[in-house]
Each structure stands twice: as C-alpha cells, then as structure tokens.
C-alpha cells in the first residue's frame, strides 16, 4: 500500500519540522553566547599574556641595558692600561663576575682593525681577528653594541656587548661575552600551562634563546609575522605587543603568539602557546556546549519522533474512519440512486402487470359468455394468454436487472469490460429517458482494454452520471450520449447531455459533497462526490466541461487493465 509510504513520509516531515523548530533556538543560543564568551574570555587571556610578555621584555631590556652600563662604567673608570694587559683584565673580569653573578664570561679589547689586543676569560682565543665578525662591523657604526647570538670562534652560543673607547685618537672596543645560559634563564621560565614558552627572536629570524620545545618552530616565518616580509616596513611596534594565531605546520594545532619587539626593533620576545592550552575554559565551554546541543538534539529528536508517531497514528485513525464513512456514504448514495432507479423500474414493471391483469380480466369476461367456445372467442383467449406470457417475461427481465444492481456493494476489484457495463446501464435508464423525452445514444469504442474496478461501484458511477444528465434535460428533453474511447493507455468514458448546463462557479464546486443545485429534498448532493471518490479510488481522473445552456460533458479516464475486450457491442442499446 502507498498509504504506509504516505504516513512514513508524513512522520518524517513532522519530525524534521519539529526538530528544526526546537533545535534552532538552542543552536542560536549556543552559538551567540559561545561567541560572546569566546570573545570576552579570549580578550582577557590575551591581555594577561600581553602583560606577561611586556614585563619580561622589560626585564630582558633591563638586563641588556645593565650589562652595557656595567661595561661602560668599567671602560670609563678603569685605567686603559688595565685593558691592554691580560692579567689586569682578568682582575677586572673577576670583579665584574663577583658583582654580577657570572653573567660576563670574558672580557677583551679589540682595536679598530678588529684584532684582539688582550683577553681574559676561559677560552684560549689567542690573537683572534674580528675584522669580519658581524658584531664588530656593527660596533664600528655606534658607541654601544649588543650583538645577536652567534657561535663565533669558540663554537658555543653567546653574544657580545661592545663599548667603544677612544685613546690617543684611536678607537678601541671593550667587548664582553654574556653568558648565554644566564641570559636564557631570563626567558626560559616564562610560561603558563603545559605548552606555554617564550623565546627571543632576532629580526634576521634567528633564535636568540633556546626554547624548551623547539620542534616545529618555524623561526623564519615567525619573523615574517612579526617584522613583515623583508623590505617591508616593520609590522611590530615597540609599545604594543603583536597578537596572532597560526597553525603549527608540524602538529596542525592552532598556536597563539604574543610578540613584543625591543632593542630598537632588532629582537622580539615571543610567547607561544597552544590555543587549547591557552584558553582551557573556552575549550571546556565549547565541549560543554557541543555536548548540551547534541544531547538536547537527541532528546528533541526522540520527543518529536514520539509526538509525530502519535499524531500520525491519530491521523491514520481519522483517515481510516473517514474511509469507512466514505464507504457508508457510497452505500447510502447507492441506495439513493437505486431508489431513483426503482421508481423508473416500478413504472416499467407496472405496465406489463397492468396489461396482464386486463388480459386476464378479458379472458374472464369471455368465459362469462355463453358462447365462449366459439372459434372467435377461443382465438381471442389464446391471444390474451400469449400476451400474458409475453408480459410476464418482460417483468422477469426487469426484475433481474434490478436485482443484479441492488445487490449489496461488491467491493472486490475485478477486471471488467466497460462497454458491457455502459450498455447495461444505458438500457436500464432508457425507460426513464423516454419519459423525459431524452434519446440515449451510446458510442462504444472497439477493442477497449478492460478496466479494474468493483462492478457495483462502476455501475453506480455510470448510473449517477446518467441520472444527473437526465435531471438536467428533464424540462426540455435532449440527447444523452455515452462514449467510451481508448485515450493513450487509459480508457475514457464521456457522458454528454444537451441540458441546461451550468455556470463556472457551479462547475468548480460540483464534486463537493452535499453541494446540490436541485430543489430541497430532490437531491442529496452526494451523487457526484461519490463518483469522484470512486474514480479517485481507481486511480482515475474526473472532470466536467459545461457552460450555461450548452449542456455538460463529464469526462472520466481510468487506467487500463489487462487485455482488450474481445468483442465490442453494437452501438445502440
């Protein structure tokens, strides 16, 4: 049955709508509130991190400044002769280390040509030549230099602080190497959560400190993020930390970066943390929201499914009730049309009965004569008896027709020949048609395929249409034409009258139950709606074409079933 499909799809549509309607506000709430929370919370966390980065940047800057200041003071107050002598230099270094907890690793004097004049410290550098060293090239340009971290001659990461001193019109540079480990400790311990870490990056994209987790750290592209592409003006400003997120190419996780430049834009202190770790509450809230929405969705889905099921079963029950009612209405309508038919039949049967009674009376009259044995009388009596027999058989035919029609509705679908049925119905209606001066013509298509339907319902259909046509022509008579044709793969039945026709407005409502144009008490208004129901049930179409005073044509097309009928009947009943 397609009924099951219909109810299933109805259930589906209901569930879809209910779920959508219930879920929409839930989702909207989750999204909007989530977004608000996300924005606010993120801003707060980022602000904290900015503070952290700025504070540490200041510490690092201060450390560098102090180192430079130390060296400057030393260069200015210590006699120059101490710088040129290794042993005196070692004394100075020891003092510095004592004061500064071993930040200065060594001390040296370099002349303007880059040659190491004297040296104090743990490394055996001999007379190193710094003429081409980057720090030296930089130092020649200014008074004070803090170099980037490099491996240098000794193969250990370190950086150089150099101060220019002038003596006898020649420039010398006092250089000290800063202990990398001590410097590293300044930033190494910054960090929150499991993944937070800080490091210093130079404008050339080189790490100045060792991050705890260097894996997947793409210093070159980070450089681009902070300082822009080479040749482009610096993106980062000294006072405002730069905040950005980017995907870690190694793990595919989203990382949060807070960077702040210092040392005249040469270095940047960069703080890096996994987003999920940086915003734990955010991720918790997100998970919670997703869980709530998912759970709510499940509950809504279940509830709407149960509700829809319940409603649809109600609908199905109502439909079943309606169908039962329809059957009853059809049955009632059938009775009504049978009643109409019966009136015609009563007339039809009445005549032969009246004739029989008169003939019998006539025979009795003759028998009451004395000379009833005369040949004339005998002949007359024989004629009368023949007539009685003839009229009796007429009665028999009529009663059989009526009985075949008035049987209880036979709902079983059979394949039947529409032409045969139309001929039968036309014959049944001929008498009534005669009285209202209507000629009944049938024009039956040859070799029509059978149609599938219940015989009694199809009889009912044709009879209702014929009765309506006769009603329409009651006043002035006319012609009723019943046509059957093959139209494509369907069988078409047309019932055409030449009666009073109807307005468009009437034609539009004509298949509605209880709609009637007949006088009160004449029509039930069910005939055509029953026709409509029967036709729809058989998967057919019914339509009417009519205009006032132009008669009407009812057109019914039914799906063909099975083989064509072997022999079509002759046209006239």
């Amino acid at each position, binding site marked *: 049955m397609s009924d099951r499909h219909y109810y299933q799809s109805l259930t589906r549509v209901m569930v879809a709508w209910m779920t959508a309607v219930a879920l929409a506000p839930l989702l909207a709430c989750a999204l909007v509130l989530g977004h608000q929370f996300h924005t606010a919370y993120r801003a707060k966390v980022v602000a904290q991190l900015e503070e952290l980065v700025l504070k540490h940047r200041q510490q690092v800057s201060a450390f560098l400044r102090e180192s430079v200041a130390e060296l400057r003071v030393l260069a200015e107050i210590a006699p120059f002769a101490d710088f040129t002598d290794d042993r005196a230099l070692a004394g100075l270094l020891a003092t510095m280390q004592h004061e500064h907890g071993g930040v200065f690793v060594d001390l040296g004097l370099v002349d303007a040509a880059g040659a190491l004049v004297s040296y104090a410290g743990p490394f055996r550098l001999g007379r190193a030549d710094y003429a081409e060293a980057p720090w030296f090239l930089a130092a020649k340009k200014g008074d004070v230099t803090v170099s980037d971290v490099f491996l240098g001659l000794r193969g250990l990461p370190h950086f150089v602080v150099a101060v220019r001193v002038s003596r006898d019109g020649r420039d010398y540079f006092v250089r000290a190497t800063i202990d990398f480990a001590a410097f590293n400790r300044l930033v190494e311990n910054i960090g929150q959560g499991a993944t937070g870490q800080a490091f210093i990056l130079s404008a050339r994209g080189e790490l100045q400190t060792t991050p705890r987790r260097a894996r997947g750290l793409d210093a070159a592209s980070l450089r681009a993020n902070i300082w822009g592409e080479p040749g482009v003006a610096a993106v980062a400003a000294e006072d405002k930390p730069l905040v950005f997120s980017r995907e870690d190419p190694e793990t595919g996780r989203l990382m949060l970066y807070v960077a702040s430049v210092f040392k005249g834009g040469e270095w940047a202190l960069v703080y890096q943390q996994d987003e999920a770790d940086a915003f734990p509450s955010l991720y918790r809230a997100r998970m919670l929201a997703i869980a709530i929405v998912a759970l709510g969705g499940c509950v809504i889905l279940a509830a709407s499914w149960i509700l829809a099921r319940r409603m649809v079963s109600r609908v199905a029950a109502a439909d079943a009730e309606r169908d039962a009612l329809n059957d009853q209405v059809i049955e009632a309508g059938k009775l009504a049309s049978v009643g109409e038919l019966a009136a015609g039949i*009563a*007339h039809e049967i009445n*005549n032969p009965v009246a004739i029989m009674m008169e003939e019998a009376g006539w025979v009795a*009259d003759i028998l009451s004569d004395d000379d009833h044995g005369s040949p004339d009388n005998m002949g007359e009596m024989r004629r*009368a008896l023949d*007539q009685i027999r003839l009229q009796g058989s007429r009665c028999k035919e009529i009663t059989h027709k009526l009985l075949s029609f008035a049987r209880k509705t036979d709902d079983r679908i059979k394949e039947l020949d529409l032409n045969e049925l139309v001929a039968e119905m036309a014959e049944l209606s001929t008498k009534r048609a*005669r009285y209202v001066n209507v000629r009944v013509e049938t024009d039956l298509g040859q070799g029509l395929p059978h149609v599938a339907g219940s015989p009694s319902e199809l009889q009912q259909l044709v009879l209702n249409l014929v009765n309506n046509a006769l009603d329409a022509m009651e006043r002035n008579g006319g012609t009723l034409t019943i046509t059957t044709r093959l139209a494509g793969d369907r069988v078409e039945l047309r019932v055409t009258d030449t009666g009073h026709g109807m307005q468009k407005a009437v034609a539009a409502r004509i298949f509605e139950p209880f709609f009637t144009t007949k006088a009160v008490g004449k029509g039930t208004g069910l005939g055509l709606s029953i026709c409509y129901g029967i036709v729809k049930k058989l998967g057919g179409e019914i339509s009417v074409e009519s205009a006032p005073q132009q008669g009407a044509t009812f057109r019914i097309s039914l799906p063909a079933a099975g083989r064509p009928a072997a022999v079509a009947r002759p046209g006239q009943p």
Partner: protein
Amino acid sequence: MSEPIPLRVLLVDDEQGFVEVLAKRLRRRGLTVAVALSGAEGLRLLRENDFDAAVCDLKMVDMDGIEVLKVFTKMVPAMPVVMLTGHGSEEAAKDGLAAGAADYLLKPCDIDELLAKLVEAVDKAKAAPASPSA
C-alpha cells in the same frame, strides 16, 4: 354480466397493449370507447367528438398527463377526467387532482373500480355543472 352503462369515454394512454384490452372490456360493458395512444391524439379526438368522461395516464412519452389534463379541462370544463398512475406516483396524482382531475386510480386497476369512479364522476359533474377551477 350487469346492465350496460351508456357512457362515452376517451382513453388516453401510450401503452397500446394495455389500452386496447381495457377498451375491449369497457365496450363489453356497454360503454362507447375511443382510444388515443398519445396526448396529442387525445386532444384531436376530443376536439372532434363529445365524451362524457376521459381516462388519462399520467406518464406518457410525448406529453405529461398533467398537461393533457389541463388542456382537457380548458376545452371541456364539464367533462370529468380520471387519472391513472403507477405506484410511487401518488404525488403526481395529487397534482392531477389540484389541476382539476375528478379522481385518480393506481395502475394496475380493477375494472369495476374504474367503472364505479367513472359513473360517480359523471353523476357528480351532471349534478353540479362544473365551474372552471381557478
């Protein structure tokens, strides 16, 4: 057989088999009977001859019995008309009475009953010359 009844009666009915036997039986009882097989023929016969009474079928193919009756009462107001009607058409018979029929009978009818009604109608018509009903 009872004594003959000398009445001139017009029978109007389109059922030939019925009307002919009825005519024979009425003639046997001494009536003078003219048979018309349609309303139109009945009108023609009435125009050409005088009748004491008419018997008219209510349902005919060419013309409604009520119409025939109306024309008859217009043509000869004094002539009583007895209507014959099938079962289930008592409504129509009452319409007939309203339209000026003297009486009505249900088909199939008993001949003696028909005769009695005819005689009664004719007697009534003679006693009170019919004023045309409005």
